[in-house]
């Protein structure tokens, strides 16, 4: 029993092999949403620099488009003010439209570039626009231990393990 308990600890430790790499926000241009294009060293042998920088630059350009103060945003703002902001209940704002485009882009990037390299890019909106997070995928071990309680025999408990490669 003690040996099995010890194995369980080890298995639990090895089951959490996934690591996350975060790219933080870049505030040098003010409060506009922008992420640092600096390449994180943890991803050195996982992905080419240019690909990752390209992704981050495209994301930044999408956010610039969403937060642009120009003709269309003024029109939207004035119309909303004139209707006492009731129009926001029915209409989708430009920002939300761009966010939908961004999530489509991220999905496409994951399918084409990141999943084949064992990475998963998470949409920043799910992290409160704080970080762009990359999850390094790994093999996950699922452990089920069946404890023999009522048989009265002295046989040790049997354990079954299944390994799954999962995207978490």
């Amino acid at each position, binding site marked *: *029993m*003690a040996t099995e*308990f010890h194995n*369980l*600890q080890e298995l*639990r*430790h090895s*089951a*959490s092999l996934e690591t*996350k790499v*975060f790219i*933080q*926000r870049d*505030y*040098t*241009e*003010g*409060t506009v949403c922008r992420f640092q294009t600096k390449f994180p060293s943890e991803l050195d042998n996982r992905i080419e620099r240019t690909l990752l920088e390209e992704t981050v630059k495209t994301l930044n350009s999408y956010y610039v488009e*969403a*937060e*642009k*103060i120009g003709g269309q*945003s*003024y029109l*939207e*703002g*004035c119309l*909303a*003010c004139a209707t*006492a*902001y*009731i129009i*926001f209940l029915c209409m989708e*704002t*430009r*920002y*939300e439209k761009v*966010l939908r485009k961004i999530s489509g882009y991220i999905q496409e990037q994951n399918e084409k570039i990141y999943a084949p390299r064992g990475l998963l890019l*998470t949409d920043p*909106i*799910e*992290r*409160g*626009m*704080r*970080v762009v*997070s990359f999850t390094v995928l790994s093999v*996950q071990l*699922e*452990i*089920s*231990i*069946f*404890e*023999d*309680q*009522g*048989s*009265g025999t002295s046989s040790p408990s049997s354990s079954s393990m299944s390994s799954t490669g999962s995207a*978490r």
Partner: protein
Amino acid sequence: MHLGVSESMRECEYSQISTRSSTPMETPYKKRTSRKRKWESFPGRSKFYCDGRIMMARQTGVFCLTLVLILVTSGLFFTFDCPFLALQLTTAIPVIGGVLFLFVLGTLLRTSFSDPGVLPRATPDEAADLERQIDVANGSTGYRPPPRTKEVVINGQTVKLKYCFTCKIFRPPRASHCSLCDNCVERFDHHCPWVGNCVGRRNYRFFYMFILSLSFLTIFIFAFVITHIILRSHRNGFLNALKDSPASVLEVVVCFFSVWSIVGLSGFHTYLISSNQTTNEDIKGSWSSKRGKDNYNPYSHGNIFTNCCSALCGPLPPSLIDRRGFIQSDTLQLAPPTNGITMYGATQSQQSHMVSETGSESVTKTSAFRAPNSFCRLPPPLSSSSRPVNQSF
């Protein structure tokens, strides 16, 4: 321990111990009867109504007073003064008054019920990553590490970004932590008890429209109630006029005392908008020239018109906290072992959304690895859905 347990276990039934759930006797195939929404395990002190659609501060008494004052004064105006004025002068008066009143109410409710721009708290993975970076930057950690700040240059001006110990993030520029709501809010202006909510990036324009339209409404009611009394007193004398419409006296008193503060506040916020500052920055004198010759506001666009347009007609960012989304409660959760070994920052959460449920658990469990300074803040209360982690083998 084992001998004693094995004897009593002979009477028990065969049961599967699964590491997927934190209670050993729970079968993994048990279906959840109800899914929880994220607002139900929100870590701050905000209150939610209508199943997460409405978000307000904890104390809403003063907001009710605001609502009552506006409704009662306007109601009295429409009931007692408008009929006389519509007949004597023009029907445009109640129409304009009605439009103003509806606009005031709409913007007030928008300000009070919407998310001011709350920043969601960091997931345990992010918090651990940041702590690692800070420890590396600080070198060897003494007992008390220095306060955590990051400097960034924005438009030629050096701005200090502070680390929030409650939310475990470096606050973006212009963000601040509201102690009443216990949330970090983007572009934090102030916490307004009169609207029962913080005023921040997402509801500042509604707040400004509210005080502006309320100033117009107050002046409008004040002016026309005075007109009403004057017209009546031409006919019947002053005292009789007051006797005939006593409600007007109440309206005049309320409006007289409100007009100074509300018009003054509108003027103040007009100044803030035109210089693109927040109340917080103005009070602290962050961009005042008194601080230094080269001190200027790096966020200002240069001219008043652009500043006003960007504050009032700029794009409205969506809420970052996704209050009505469902917590992903059926993902793999590793139950921490009972002998005290904790894994640094490790949770098997698929998405950060569910961390709001388990995050509170893992925060307290990894406390042994946190820098001593972070013990200053109390850990967030465990959500009701988190289960006790006692296991017995």
